[in-house]
């Protein structure tokens, strides 16, 4: 437990450093931006080790409590961010993803460490599957969110005919749209699977398939919005600002649900 905590703190410190290095160029002339992905990578490695050590210490999969789930969420978000960054060179990801990861990590330290109740003997594996899938879906949505946000900002600037001169330099509209589309295409099926397995798991505990709790409702609303976006994008070739805005709304709902704040 101790090792894992030290490792987790190290990871958090490295993420925080990455965050600072991404934001310093906004305020000063320092060019620390190129350090950010490496700091994030170092943080992620420490994070991986921390999760591993935690799993060994607890003698179970470290997805049993809400803090553990949130920690796993930020772990996978950083993983996907690093992959997407090295594939697309979107510097804007630094300033969106790292703050989100930090928020999730900090919240994970604040929420109570209650074990999630597990009823039937067969269920833990289903619950774990549900959580893993959901975590990766949300992590992919982080990227969708970042790309959509960049799209909306750039579109506004172009429509206002006031060129944005931000650091990091925003990617082109086309690039934002593409990253938003591709990451959503990954996130959406995972999210669907996650919600379905979640419903089944809930049913096995509460013996009702659906409880009208705010958190389920939020998740389903987000899912419905994303479904509309996907259908319109694929079917009608809908693109641009409006899908980006809708995606941002859906992401906020998902994030609220994940952080357990309703």
């Amino acid at each position, binding site marked *: 437990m101790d090792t894992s905590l030290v490792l987790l703190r190290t990871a958090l410190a490295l993420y925080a450093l990455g965050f600072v290095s991404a934001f310093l160029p906004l305020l000063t002339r320092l060019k620390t931006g190129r350090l950010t992905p490496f700091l994030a990578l170092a943080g992620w490695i420490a994070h991986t080790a921390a999760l591993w050590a935690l799993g060994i210490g607890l003698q179970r999969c470290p997805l049993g409590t809400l803090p553990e789930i949130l920690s796993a969420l930020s772990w996978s978000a950083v993983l996907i961010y690093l992959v997407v960054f090295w594939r697309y060179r979107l510097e804007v990801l630094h300033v969106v993803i790292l703050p989100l990861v930090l928020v999730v990590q900090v919240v994970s330290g604040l929420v109570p460490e209650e074990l999630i109740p597990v009823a039937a003997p067969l269920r833990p594996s289903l619950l774990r599957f549900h959580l893993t899938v959901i975590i990766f879906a949300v992590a992919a949505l982080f990227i969708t969110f970042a790309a959509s946000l960049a799209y909306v900002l750039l579109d506004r600037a*172009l429509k206002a005919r006031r060129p944005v001169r931000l650091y990091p330099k925003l*990617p082109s509209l086309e690039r934002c749209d593409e990253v938003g589309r591709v990451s959503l295409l990954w996130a959406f099926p995972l999210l669907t699977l996650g919600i379905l397995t979640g419903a089944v798991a809930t049913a096995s505990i509460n013996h009702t398939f659906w409880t009208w709790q705010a958190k389920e409702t939020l998740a389903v609303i987000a899912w419905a919005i994303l479904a509309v976006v996907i259908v319109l994008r694929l079917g009608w070739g809908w693109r641009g600002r409006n899908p980006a805005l809708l995606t941002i709304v859906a992401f906020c709902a998902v994030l609220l649900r994940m952080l357990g704040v309703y």
Partner: protein
Amino acid sequence: MPIVFGMNHRSAPLAVRERVAFPGEEVGAAAARLRGLTGVEEAVLLSTCNRTELIVTASAADAGGILARFLERERPIALDELERHCYLHRGPEAVRHVFRLTSSLDSMVVGEAQILGQVKEAYAAAGRAGSLGPVLDALFRRAFSAAKKVRTETGIARNPVSIACAAVSLARDIFGDLDDNSVLVVGAGKMARLAAQQLKSEGVRAVAVANRSFQHADELARELGGRAVPFDRLFEEMERADIVIASTAAPHRVIGREDALRVSRARRGRPIFFIDIAVPRDVDPAVHEIDNVYLYDLDDLQGVVKANMDGRLHEVQSAEAIIEREVAAFLAWRKSLEVTPTIVELRQRLHEIALAELERFHSRLGELTPDQAEAVRLLAVSLVNKLLHQPTVALKRAAALNGGGLRVELIREIFGMDTRHPEGDAAPVQGDRDETVAAPVAGHAESAPSRRQDER
């Protein structure tokens, strides 16, 4: 110290500047002739369309007059005109001027990149012509590094400040690197050609030209390596084009809101960028309100350019601060050279005294073995060196000080040297001068603090 004599776009109109300008291939030879004048020690000649500047170091008191007469002889211009349009900077002012101009703070378009290359060429030409000396060499080297600092540490050269570049930069904001995008040029005028060429050089994939006169369209298309399309197929073509440059001479709108909406729908929302550089305008301004359609007309592009310009001017302040630091560093270095003659003289004087005293006491010491004689000489020399140490350090420190001259005067007086402080302009840097003084202690182990290392 350096002297700058010349004119630029602010001090002289083009009609005057063009008469004073030197053609590129003559610059080296002219610099050599300038260097050949009596009183001129080093010379660099910089001549661009916006400025002609003579940058020299000179021992002559009337350097301004010499330089003006040089220009009068070399170029078809009268002395009184030169007097009206030229400026003369000396010493720190001249250093600052060279630093600012190399960093493009003195340019018509602040932050433009050309001037640095032009100054480098002038410097290289002077080097080849042999008119460069230690002072100007150091001045220009430092000016280049200052210019580099200004470019990298401030945003002075960051954003485009021409209409064409602004349009390209907007296209990049929308489409990215453009090599997958195509351009449709509507109209075959000069402006359309220029804009299309700019985009072509930025790597757009395909160019199509539509014009009322198919023949003109064909000519332009051939020139741009694209294809001509009939004017009545304009909107079909637009469905495939990502960037539309509208530049017809038509007195009415050519592309209306409905047309653009139809095109955008047919493109399934892929963004389209209209650049309307026609006057009167070709594209209905309402087109800009459609999602995924962006329209910039001449005024809008002008606005972008102006915003970028303002951004640059904002950066000028931090650039000036860098320049001030660099100027101060250069002047401090120059000043440190100025105390060298005093240090040299001081050493020479004290060693002379020591040797004279040795000579005087020679008889009193009686018969000495060669070893003993050498020991006595060593004693005297090492005593002098020890005594010299502190004043030397104080002099070097005075060099870097503002008003250090007073301290130098004081030391000269204390050691009974004539109190006329050798002025920096009288070429104090000559290496051969301190060679003579090094002699008394040459090869001696107790040789006092370094004399020469600090000079460069």
